[in-house]
Structure formats: structure tokens, C-alpha cells
């Protein structure tokens, strides 16, 4: 099994994937709690169309996608904040709209079906040598900013009006969450796929929220789940030559089921304990 890491492309996928899984799990807790579970979906479709434009124009995909997705992410969080357009319909509009634009543009140039395929379903081969440095630097930056502003991000997610009233710059931290999310999505989508990347945000957070009840433990557990699932998925995809993204998501589903079962049985034990007390 270890010999798989002698392949440079697997090694690259391993490094970048682990970091991206960490970022997405941490941010995922906040996004799920802010009712923005599907933001990953919307943003990855925007990233898809940005990368399509970049492919057609022969620009570097990451450099085009990151600023575009940051802008889209900010607009989405803003739109959700005022009540005229609800968050989920805003995401749906953006996500399908961007997908259509992307497919339209990419089909103008024939013979790039493999590109569509890679962007949609992800590929371990997607991380080129030149991308590795940028990906590692960016995801380390996301992690560092998250840890540094952890308390403020908690406060803004838990109760934004209170944070605002007491002088925490809530808009700044919302913007920060938007930027960090955008970067994470762009880095992750090429490996996991535009269609599947939002599961990396949702599953670890949902699993750990079944079992843990304090925010810090939820965050730590979801980071651990995410990294373990990614590694397991990567190994499976190597051994059985299945797509990496789908393998990772399947493992995440299994973990979610296990955590649901744990929560269920813990509830039963608590109930029985209460009964026998009487």
C-alpha cells in the first residue's frame, strides 16, 4: 500500500488533499451552522465556469478562479444577509447560472471533454507540480487565519446581532469566512470535483454535530473525520482505481451513518439509565 506514495502525483494529491480536507471541515462547521451548506456547490460551479474561461483563453486556471470565486462568495453571503432573496435561492441561481455559462464556453472549443469531466468529477492527476506550491501556501494561510480568528468566527456564527452590537466587526469576519471558503473550494474542486466538493464541507460537520455538543469539540472532531476520510478515500481510489472524489464521499457517508448510530444508542442508553433510576 505504501508504494502508492512513491508516485509523485499521488504524493501531491495526498499533501494538497489533506490540507484542503482540513480547511473545508473547519469552515464547514460554520457554514452548516450559518445555513449555508450549499454554498460549496454554488461556488464550485462558479469556479467551474471561471476555469472553463481560463482553459479556453489559455490562462492559468487557479489565478482566474480564485478572485472570481471570492467575489461570488462575498455576493452570496451578502445576498443571504438581506431578506429579499433567501440564501438558498441565491445559491441556486448562481450555481445553475454559472454552470450553464461554463458549459457554453467550454463547448465552443471542441475536444476538451476530458477537461469537463475532470472539473465535474475531479481527478488526482489534476494537481500539477506548479499548482502544489500555491495550493499548499493558500491552504496553510486559510488554516492559520481560521485558528487566529477562531473566537471571533465563533461569535459571529453564534449570534451576529450581539457581536455587532458589542463592537465585533461582524462584516469583516463574514467577509473573511467568504474568502476562506472560496479559496478552499477552488483548491479542492479539481481533485474532488465540482459536483462533489460541497460534501467535503457538509459531511464532517454533520457527523461530528451528531455526537459532540460543544463548538470546539465539533470543530476538532470534524477536522479529524475529514482528514481520515480523505486518506481512506485516496487509498481506496488507488487500490480499486475508482475516482478519488466519489471514494472520499462514500467513506464520509459511512462515517456519518456510524456517528448517527452512536448518537442513537447513546440516547437509548441515557433513556434506559433514566428509567432504571426510578
Amino acid at each position, binding site marked *: 500500500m505504501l508504494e502508492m506514495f512513491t508516485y509523485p502525483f499521488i504524493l501531491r494529491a495526498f499533501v494538497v488533499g489533506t490540507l484542503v480536507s482540513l480547511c473545508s471541515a473547519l469552515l464547514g462547521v460554520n457554514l452548516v*451552522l450559518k*445555513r449555508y451548506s450549499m454554498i460549496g456547490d454554488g461556488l464550485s460551479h462558479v469556479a467551474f465556469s471561471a476555469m472553463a474561461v481560463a482553459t479556453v483563453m489559455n490562462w492559468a486556471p487557479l489565478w482566474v478562479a480564485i478572485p472570481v470565486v471570492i467575489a461570488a462568495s462575498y455576493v452570496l453571503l451578502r445576498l443571504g444577509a438581506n431578506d429579499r432573496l433567501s440564501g438558498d435561492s441565491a445559491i441556486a441561481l448562481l450555481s445553475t447560472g454559472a454552470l450553464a455559462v461554463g458549459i457554453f464556453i467550454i463547448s465552443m472549443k471542441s475536444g476538451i471533454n476530458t477537461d469537463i469531466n475532470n472539473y465535474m468529477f475531479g481527478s488526482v492527476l489534476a494537481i500539477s507540480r506548479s499548482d502544489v506550491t500555491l495550493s499548499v501556501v493558500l491552504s496553510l494561510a486559510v488554516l492559520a487565519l481560521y485558528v*487566529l*480568528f*477562531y*473566537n*471571533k468566527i*465563533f*461569535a459571529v456564527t*453564534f*449570534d*451576529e*446581532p*450581539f*457581536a*455587532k*452590537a*458589542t*463592537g*465585533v466587526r461582524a462584516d469583516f469576519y463574514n467577509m473573511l469566512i467568504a474568502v476562506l471558503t472560496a479559496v478552499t473550494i477552488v483548491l479542492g474542486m479539481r481533485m474532488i470535483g465540482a459536483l462533489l466538493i460541497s460534501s467535503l464541507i457538509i459531511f464532517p460537520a454533520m457527523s461530528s*454535530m451528531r455526537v*459532540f*455538543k*460543544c*463548538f*470546539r*469539540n*465539533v470543530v476538532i472532531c470534524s477536522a479529524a473525520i475529514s482528514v481520515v476520510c480523505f486518506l481512506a478515500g485516496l487509498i481506496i481510489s488507488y487500490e480499486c482505481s475508482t475516482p478519488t472524489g466519489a471514494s472520499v464521499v462514500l467513506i464520509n457517508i459511512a462515517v456519518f451513518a456510524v456517528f448517527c448510530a452512536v448518537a442513537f444508542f447513546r440516547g437509548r442508553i441515557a433513556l434506559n439509565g433514566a428509567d432504571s433510576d426510578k
Partner: protein
Amino acid sequence: MKTLIRCKDVTLGYENMTVLEHVSFELNEGDYLCVVGENGAGKSTLIKCLAGLKRPSEGQIEFSPTISRSDVGYLPQQTAIQRDFPASVREVVMSGCLNHSRLIPFYTKADRQRAAAHMEELGITDLAGRSYRELSGGQQQRVLLARALCASEKLLMLDEPVTGLDPIVTSEIYGIIREVNRKYGMTVIMVSHDVRTAVRSANKILHLKHTVQFFGSTEEYLASSTGREFLGGQRENA
């Protein structure tokens, strides 16, 4: 006595509906203002505006330069907190301390002591490790009050802080608020339907009904026709 807040001819509303008009009043440092009025009179709207969550559609609200947003403690009437949010009581109370540690992103020892002291004060120390979402309504209210106390040193804005609390805890909480006002000279703005208790601790009353019905000291309020009517009405209902 220095003026802390000055409201000048403020108009407030939602979309194109006006809720309050021509609201003017002044508060000094160390005042205890009680905002009273019927349901829907616009009390919460005014508090939201003072807390900086809403802009007045006309008029100005001026704060003295001695006070900044980070000196404000706030307890909203209804919180936007999601029912399934995983957070321990300690985490919630600590989050009130955030506006003090401006340069350091993490909590300091002083923050921890401050949070512990306020949890003790409100009798929630033994709940510290519990999950916020699993507490009763009254316990949650006490947690949020502890958080508000952590946040402020100068100004406390409370929107119906005792709703859903039992009579013993209610009078304890009124006692705590009175103490921070008298002992530490903290300015308090409180919305309350319990006018008679409020009248006992507050030194100023603001009675709202689409506009200011009355603003002045408690003694004047008790003597005024507005006050007598409102208090009388309450007595009949009781």
C-alpha cells in the same frame, strides 16, 4: 454628570412603515433608564437602533466620545441563535469578552476570570460544561445575561431581561442589574413590562407609543397622567 447618549428627533421604521417618530431624549452617565409601553409600541426597535443594528430613518443618535461600541453589553428580546447550535455555556459566556481583547485574538486569563465571576453571579457555574441548546428557557436567558455583563463595563442594554424567569430569579436579576448600576456606575437601558418593579430601581422612564409619551425622572412619571394611567391599568389587570 456627563451626557452619554443624545437622541435628537429620531424616526424609526421598517421598509415604509414608521414605528416611532420624534423621539428625543438624553441620558447621563450612571443613569438607569426604563423603557415602557404597550406591545408593539416600538421599544425593541429603539433598543436595536441604540445597539447599532438599525439606522434611524431620520434624526441622530449621538454617543459621547468616552464610550465606544466595545463598551456595550446587549441582551436582545429574541435571539437569532439556532436551536441546534452546538456550544457549551462557557463558550457562549466567554464570547462576550471578545470586544476587550482587541490585539490578542485569544482569550486571556483576565477574560476567563471575568466570565467565571459573572457565571457565579448568575448561578450558572455548574452549567458551564452543559450544552446551551439543552438548557431551559430561563437558564438560557441567564447565560445570555452573563454574556452581556462580560461584554460591557459602561453601558448595558437589556430588552426584557426577565421574561420566562421564575419570581426568585427575577428579583435576583433585578438586584444584579441595580447593583452594577449603583456600585459600578454602569449606565443601564432596560425594556420592561414589569413597570412597578422597574419604577423602584430606575431613575428615568421613557414611555413610548408611536412617539415619546413621557420622558423624565421616575418621580415625575409617577405623578404624571401617563404614568398614573399605565400603572393603574396594570393594577386593574393584576
